[in-house]
């Protein structure tokens, strides 16, 4: 399995994790370790930077784990850029998961503000990974704006519905010059495997692991499925056929 490279940094694991929704920080840590993930996203709004006694961060202090702060809570580009700068200062990383969802019900990403923020953040030297709709045109616009990767959703975030946007994801993957990370909606290891099989560079999973019956076991299942899907993609899947081989081929007369 090839390593994944984003903005010059190599990752052995193609499974990224979210850190919300776990029953305890310790359980989150155990699941992250079991997943083999090297990139985990943390909401800036959950981090208590003032007291410096943050439970969440204390559980993510492992040499192989890179933090990817996110701007969840931002409603527009201005707020996101401000939050990004705070995150960079607090977590000492210029990597950023750009999340702008002005709609607090379904947490749908705002394509207009995300593009504006991406342009600004790239200029400020951030490695931007934006959470977006599975919109192929937006992905190309973000590339032009200097994004390090794109993170299109598979289904509404937290829905566990799987790859509902697969037709658009395939177009994005086909056209992209930056890594494509399927970000939201992945509900089961088979969804993750499917995303990898169609050529996604990585997947980001949170809810399906955090609220699974046994998050640690589920993290292992996702690790295996992401590896399986990626290996299958690299090995090239046999093509599927819709029809049986005809016994009287129409082109037989050609000899």
């Amino acid at each position: 399995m090839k390593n994944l490279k984003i903005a010059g940094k190599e990752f052995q694991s193609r499974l990224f994790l979210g850190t919300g929704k776990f029953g305890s920080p310790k359980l989150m840590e155990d699941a992250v370790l079991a997943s083999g993930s090297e990139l985990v996203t943390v909401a800036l709004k959950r981090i208590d930077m003032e007291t410096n006694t943050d439970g969440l961060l204390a559980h993510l202090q492992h040499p192989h784990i890179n933090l990817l702060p996110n701007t969840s809570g931002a409603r527009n580009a201005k707020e996101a850029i401000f939050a990004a700068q705070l995150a960079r200062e607090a977590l000492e990383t210029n990597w950023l998961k750009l999340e702008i969802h002005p709609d607090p019900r379904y947490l749908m990403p705002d394509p207009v503000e995300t593009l504006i923020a991406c342009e600004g953040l790239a200029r400020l030297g951030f490695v931007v990974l934006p959470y977006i709709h599975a919109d192929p045109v937006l992905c190309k616009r973000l590339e032009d704006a200097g994004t390090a990767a794109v993170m299109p959703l598979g289904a509404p975030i937290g829905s566990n519905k799987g790859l509902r946007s697969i037709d658009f994801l395939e177009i994005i993957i086909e056209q992209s010059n930056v890594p494509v990370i399927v970000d939201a909606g992945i509900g089961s290891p088979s969804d993750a495997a499917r995303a990898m099989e169609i050529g996604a560079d990585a997947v980001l999973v949170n809810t399906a692991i955090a609220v699974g019956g046994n998050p640690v076991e589920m993290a292992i299942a996702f690790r295996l499925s992401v590896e399986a899907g990626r290996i299958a993609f690299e090995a090239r899947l046999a093509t599927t056929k819709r029809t049986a081989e005809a016994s009287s081929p129409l082109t037989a007369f050609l000899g």
Partner: protein
Amino acid sequence: MMFKEIFNQYHWDEVQESIYAKTSLDVEMALSSHRRTLEDFKALISPAAAPYLEEMAQLSHQLTQKRFGNTIQMYAPIYLSNVCTNFCTYCGFNFDNKIKRKTLAPDEISLEIAEIKKQGYNHILLVTGEAKQVVHIDYFKNAIEIIKPHFANISIEVQPLDQEEYEKLRQAGIYAVLVYQETYNQEKYPEYHPKGRKANFDYRLETPDRAGKAGIHKIGVGVLLGLEDWRTDSFFCALHLDYLQKKYWQTKYSVSFPRIRPAEGVLPPNVVVSDREMVQLICAYRLRYENVELSISTRESEQFRNNIIKLGVTSMSAGSKTNPGGYTLDTESLEQFAISDERSSRQMAEYISSINYEPVWKDWDKSFI
């Protein structure tokens, strides 16, 4: 268009009748529905749904877990003032009630918040009575100024204000505005609010509209359980929520479930909402509104609160004092209502952790205001 126009299209008695006419078939259809409607909500809060309580609880648990994870957000109220010029028949701060009145001065606010902070809180709710001469926009702004450096998230539960005042509060750092209609029964409303500014039903009803227009991040709605038929009142609250979600789509919403508790100088509740009914109501909200925050205060008992954590609730207070200065200054002064769950925030957090949930102390950042 404001909510009043929609509200006027409904009649209390007809709504009540239609809720009580719901059948077990309506409930079963609501339970199996993929996207539940307001009519489904009616079925779920109807008497016909009572035998389906366990099924509702299971579904509510699953939906809450999916959206909010195994977490409970923690917040603490700070009562800034119990001065009040209203005459609400159910409230301990009623103007007629001859109690010691108190409004916290800046240095007193500092003392109180230091104690609240010590208890681990990062989200705080400012509460006052309604007394325009004493607790006005400048008082709030001043209080926010003192509180803001110490808390990640500040909400406010005070008298209804104008849109412009909400804009000022938002700019000053207020995240959420909580305002409960108490009852949507317009005919009966004056009986509970005979005089004072709160007697104006329409002005209160359109408060969430004004807060929404002002761009407030979160608006909390609810009815005071114990005044009028809780099913009918809750339907109207849900109708309100539907309207608000569509109109102010960038705003987050929460629903609270204050059940009338005994307080000095007030009448006992007009209707009693049983624990079973309370659970039914909470689950019905979750089944209809998967993404709405549901909040429970210390009005409820320890046993009830322990068990409700897994049934749909997403935020809780603990160790609350409902009298101004109650945390440090004047621990014996009169409360708005007697709290029922006396546990400290630490004890509550320990309980939450013991059932494999995480108490969340910080889930907002000032940088977003």
